[in-house]
């Protein structure tokens, strides 16, 4: 029952209700844009792809199936599309700023708030350590904690199974914890 309003929104959209389409756009555009920019490091490419994606949704709404979670579907479907575009865009001059190095998610110290777990380390250091995680670990962390998407939906978005999401999280935090411990030790040795 939790998803009932979402289901109604989706059905109304499928039935051609423009207000539903607009609501859906206003709710999900900002987070999809942020997600896309993070994934490819290129705002213009994200914007273009996102626009094409919503045009696709609009044009094919009658053909789209029923959903449990609009958000998971939009994230998953947009992610596939963006990866395809990223592959295409690399050699073109249109997006000449795009390079493979940028295609890795990066976290900046400005994006970090006060931490519950790693509060004794500087944000600069924490972001540095976060950025050493694998692509997949960073994406799971981003989806889980930045977008606050539950694990079940992450499985759909990243097309991996439940156990993989959990394992990825566990591996990431194990690494974070040990790297941060190491940092603290080095700090102690310096003093």
């Amino acid at each position, binding site marked *: 029952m939790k998803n009932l309003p979402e289901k109604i929104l989706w059905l109304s959209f499928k039935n051609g209700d*423009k207000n539903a389409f607009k609501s859906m756009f206003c709710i999900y555009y*900002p987070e999809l844009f942020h997600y896309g920019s993070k994934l490819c490091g290129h705002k213009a490419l994200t914007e273009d792809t996102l626009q094409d994606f919503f045009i696709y949704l609009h044009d094919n709404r009658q053909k789209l199936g029923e959903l449990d979670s609009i958000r998971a579907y939009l994230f998953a479907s947009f992610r596939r599309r963006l990866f395809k575009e990223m592959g295409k865009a690399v050699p073109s001059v249109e997006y000449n700023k795009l390079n493979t190095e940028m295609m890795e998610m990066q976290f900046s110290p400005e994006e970090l708030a006060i931490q519950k777990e790693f509060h004794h380390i500087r944000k600069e250091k924490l972001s540095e350590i976060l950025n050493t995680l694998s692509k997949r670990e960073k994406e799971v962390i981003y989806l889980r904690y930045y977008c606050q998407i539950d694990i079940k939906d992450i499985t759909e978005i990243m097309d991996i199974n439940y156990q993989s999401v959990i394992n990825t999280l566990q591996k990431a935090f194990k690494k974070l914890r040990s790297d941060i411990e190491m940092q603290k030790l080095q700090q102690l040795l310096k003093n």
Partner: protein
Amino acid sequence: MAKREFKSIEDFIEDASFVNWVNKENLSDINFWEKWIEEHPDQLELVLNAKAVVNGIQFKKTPHEAEKTEARWESLINAIENKTENDIPSLKKRTAPLYRYISIAASICALMVLGWLYQSSLSKNEIIHQTKNGEFINLRLPDGTNLTLNANSEIRYQKNNPRKVWLKGEAYFRVKKKPSAKAKFQVMTDDLTVEVYGTEFNVNSRHQKTDVILDEGAINIVLSDGSVKEMIPGEFISFSAESETLLTRKKVEKPEVLTSWKDGTLILDQLSLQEVMTKIEDIYGTPAEFADEISATKVISGGIPTENFEICIMAIEKAANVRIDRDNNTLLIMSNN
């Protein structure tokens, strides 16, 4: 409390009492877990990992401006509308409800003034692109012309004539050549009109004057007093309608320095801090005050980012050996020595 098996990480993170312990929320859960950890020292590593997963990483969410989303919505609707217009006539009927919807969207849009926006105004014929502090965008006009709009700037044009644009602020143009004879591209500012056929140039209409730098090709400048100047590549012209005078006309040695902003880095080539801070205000909308005269006259060189205010300020502090404090929107600059 039901006795559960806790063996793998999901057993912990999916357990409500464990989450309560992590969040220090329920006394009986806290007691239970403290006791449990004591009794299972071999599981400590797993418990600490699970605790870290529950706590997670706290992010500051970037607030996404409603205006921006609204602007993207307008852009989307325009694209859908254009696509529908190009469809075969038999499908035309379908567009009727969409048009009604566009007029609602357009009237909502009219309420917006701020923000980066891409809208069809009430006439539905005028397209406006705006940038605000620290923002710059790459645009492709319907005729294929590419332009980069600097921060705090605006470009507008009639939908049916995208080769005549009005500019406030600064933009760099890469005009697409059109084979037909009538295909000149025009950029209008309060001071002058730039007429071109296919070329790359920079127009800056800030500070009650308009500066034009020509990188490539040839352009004609029609000044507001009616006179026409022909420009050659590498030339720089500055004209003010207010004083009706040609302020500067010269060949610049490094035009790429003056147009460097379009690639995300503003190159400063032997500029006084006073001049630098005017550029910073143009881009980020932050006026500067100098605590002493020495710092205003310091000369610096180097590159500063146009999309990251913090780094930009730090770079200037380092390069000029000054301290920059922020008082609301104003930057206070004082010498370090």
